[in-house]
């Protein structure tokens, strides 16, 4: 049996500083395009990851720029799995998607975007820190 073909596995660590958000956006869009998503999906995936990182910066690290965030993007047989690990405050689950959709309040949009764009989203407290995992399936066309 031949060995499985290697799949893309991107790992990086970044400070909890918004200055680095464009760096991650610049990587995830082309990554999603290379995996086969169209331009619209690539923007949605980029936005979902950007929102997840922004939430960690604002809520886990309270806008401190010296926190550490580890990011992994892993291609698998179904699509893409994104994992974020941080050592800040755990997310307040009562505030996740607490804002009503389609209202005119300015805050709380990010978690709705993540939920709408990604197929699965989970938040876990682990010994290594707070772990956010989101997956998106790639619909294959023949």
């Amino acid at each position: 049996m031949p060995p499985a073909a290697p799949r893309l596995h991107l790992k990086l660590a970044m400070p909890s500083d918004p200055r680095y958000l464009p760096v991650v956006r610049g990587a995830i869009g082309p990554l999603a395009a290379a995996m086969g998503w169209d331009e619209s999906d690539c923007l949605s995936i980029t936005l979902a990851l950007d929102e997840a990182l922004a939430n960690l910066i604002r809520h886990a690290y309270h806008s401190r720029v010296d926190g550490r965030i580890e990011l992994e993007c892993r291609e698998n047989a179904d699509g893409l799995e994104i994992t974020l690990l941080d050592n800040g405050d755990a997310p307040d689950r009562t505030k996740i998607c607490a804002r009503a959709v389609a209202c005119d309040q300015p805050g709380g949009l990010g978690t709705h975007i993540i939920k709408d764009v990604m197929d699965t989203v989970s938040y876990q407290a682990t010994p290594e820190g707070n772990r956010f995992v989101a997956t998106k399936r790639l619909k294959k066309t023949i």
Partner: protein
Amino acid sequence: MEIEGDVDLGTSPDLRRTLFETLVDAPKLALNLAAIRYIDSSGIATLIEVLKDSQRRKKEFVLFGLSPAVQQVFHLTHVMRIFQVFQTEEEALGSA
């Protein structure tokens, strides 16, 4: 008024400050988003805050020139209906 670049967690506080200051002296603010390459939810939240401030001050805040990418974020966040959005500057400035 025209803005350009990326509007995200890092840049939206400056945009918010600029728009609030501009709105103090202007009866109407038409914001050109044609040169915006990317906007996130903090940028959308900023625009909602400015809209609400304009309503409190009995002023007008309208948007025009939204690129397909910006329109996609507006649709994802379900906020298109709360703004007055126009295609061109002429339409935006001519709106009542």
